[in-house]
């Protein structure tokens, strides 16, 4: 394929407000898991590899996910900040730039063909609601100009540390190529852009829909992901699970309703989880109640505690409560 792929660093805040500047509050979207099945970066890399893109550049961020990307068995992206040098060394004429939070299954070859056919300067990926998917195609020259502009503007601030990289980059992109001949490519099936915890919550919950599961779980080729050797899920006598996703290594003693439960989650007796996303390795004690929340990885929810978020303001629980 006549294009290289660039994966942008993409950070976001977990909790809004007082924790804004706490380093622990900023996560890399690339390493967030979706429906306990793959990391966001897996799906973007998978799309690129399946589309026949041979050269992929991953711009590093400050989080550990670069080690993850660097050690994949099924693809070997280059991890570097030096976009200029990388693009100069490649023979491809086009560049596909994507954020890790761009959750869809797409053949970039088709996008590129349309881009070339319509003689566009830039082609933006959108979903069926016309929302920008955090992915675009452009020529190598335009892309290099764009990154030069970024480097000139952010100067001493390291772009990959900012939680708002997505917004900043979009603004610059608009300044550089906004006036050019732009084209939109609408994804036929499921497409969502994860840009904050609310959209992250929504994407996970949408996996309760069988059509969405079909796209990501059943459609060939299978999405590459990293193997975790967990035992099968176990449901005890008083388990009551309804319209939910349950992952390997879970032990369920309580009620789970309309929720997505990641790997190795223990749910205590008489506890109830409703409309929530529980990330991996979480311990939930007896008699707990959780509604409209995301519970972060490795958290412990003490017995007899209650956390209720709102449908328009999802609660975020991190660490030990």
């Amino acid at each position, binding site marked *: 394929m006549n294009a290289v792929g660039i994966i942008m660093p993409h950070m976001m805040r977990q909790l809004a407000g007082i924790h804004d500047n706490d380093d622990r509050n900023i996560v890399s979207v690339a390493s967030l898991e979706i*429906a*306990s*099945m793959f990391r966001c970066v897996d799906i973007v890399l998978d799309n690129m590899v399946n589309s026949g893109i041979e050269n992929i550049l991953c711009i590093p961020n400050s989080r550990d996910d670069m080690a993850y990307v660097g050690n994949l068995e099924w693809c070997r992206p280059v991890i570097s900040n030096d976009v200029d040098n990388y693009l100069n060394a490649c023979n491809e004429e086009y560049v596909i730039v994507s954020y890790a939070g761009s959750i869809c299954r797409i053949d970039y070859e088709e996008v590129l063909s349309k881009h070339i056919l319509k003689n566009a300067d830039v082609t933006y990926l959108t979903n069926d609601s016309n929302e920008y998917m955090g992915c675009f195609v452009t020529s190598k020259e335009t892309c290099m100009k764009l990154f030069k502009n970024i480097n000139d503007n952010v100067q001493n601030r390291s772009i990959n540390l900012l939680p708002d990289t997505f917004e900043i980059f979009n603004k610059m992109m608009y300044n550089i190529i906004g006036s050019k001949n732009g084209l939109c490519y609408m994804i036929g099936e499921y497409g969502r852009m994860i840009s904050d915890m609310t959209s992250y919550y929504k994407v996970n919950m949408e996996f*309760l829909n*069988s059509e969405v*599961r079909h796209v990501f*779980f059943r459609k060939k080729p299978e999405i590459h*992901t990293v*193997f*975790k*050797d*967990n*035992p*099968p*899920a*176990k*449901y*005890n*006598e*008083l*388990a*009551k*699970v*309804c*319209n*939910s*996703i*349950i*992952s*390997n*290594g879970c*032990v*369920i*003693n309580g009620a789970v309703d309309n929720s*997505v*439960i*990641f*790997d190795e989650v223990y749910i205590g007796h008489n506890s109830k989880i409703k409309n929530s996303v529980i990330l991996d390795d979480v311990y939930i004690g007896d008699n707990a109640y959780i509604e409209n929340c995301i519970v972060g990885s490795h958290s412990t929810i003490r017995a007899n505690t209650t956390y209720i978020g709102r449908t328009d303001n999802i609660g975020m629980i991190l660490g030990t409560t």
Partner: protein
Amino acid sequence: MVHEMVAMLLAGGEAQADLGILSDGNIISTTSFGGKYRIIDFALSNCNNSGIESVKLLKNYVGTAAAVCNELNYLEEKNPEYVLIVDGAHIYKMNYRLMLKEHIKKGADVTVAGLPLCAREAKRFGIMHTDDNGMIYRFDNKANEHKMALASMGVYIFSWKVLREILVDLKGYPGLEFGRHVLPYCLWRGKRIASYKYNGYWRDINNLKDYWDANMDLVNEVSNLNLYEEFRKVYSNDRRRMPQYISGKGVTKRAVIGSSCEIYGEVTGSVIGSDVVIEEGAVVKDSIIMDGTYIGKNTIINKGIVADGCTIGSECFIGDGDDIGSNAQGGYHSGLVAVGAGSVIPSYVTIGRDTVIIGRTSREDYSNGKLPSGRYMVKDR
């Protein structure tokens, strides 16, 4: 590289007829277990968790000791201090290193792992009679039925020099077995045989009933076999990690369910493998369903063992009626229904207990839509 201890893993044990239909080539150790594992994963994980780096799989079943005799060259080459002999058809979590420590401490030539059982049970595996120091002076299957006895678990540690000497003596004896031939010969030769008492969970899988029982042990809330601890983890080669979906009408209680299943019906007291679909209204009770099987709407399965890749139609009743014993070959008296890999059962049929179905069956194969208890049916796959 010096190997302190190498493991010889007997992986070729053949299943009795009824269990055999669940695995390719009738081999017990490769039969699926617990919704994710193969039976051999337990012995392999034990070796790994005990820090044993060399494990030799012995695939041909010619007698346990005869199989090791065939690998004498391998052992000569490795030249270890000790040789561990384990069976791939056992379900347990054991640290062989602790057993080795005892072996060394007691200055034994051979150490045999033993499980305290009531004598009636222990007879099946062979009883070890020990002195006050835990040294074995006799093997047989005689003991007071109401007392506890030490049953041989088929786990042995030999000092390599002793094993070599003994096997060279006995080489060529047809169907040479450790329990029946080698250990009594060791005693006769005056070798020091120690017992090592193991108090954890251990199951020997030999027939369909053993297999069903061991799976059901996993379903209990407090299982003696804990697969959910990092400590002595059981590893597997199943690389699927997709989660499972339980629908709004699904029921899952006392159940172990593997990756990427879609459950729209009711699952109680059962072990379900990966990629299984159980449709709305279906009831799977006290059963084992293996990878990739599809169960249609409103079908009831009671005490069934359905192997990989089967398709079961809708509105069936499988496991109907009382246990009656069987006229099938080998005898099926456990009240279970066994369905071989890749079988097809059409919609609207009733199947009794102590039955076996293998292959693609169609409506015409069931007279009045029924397979009575105690019958079997074998068709092409």
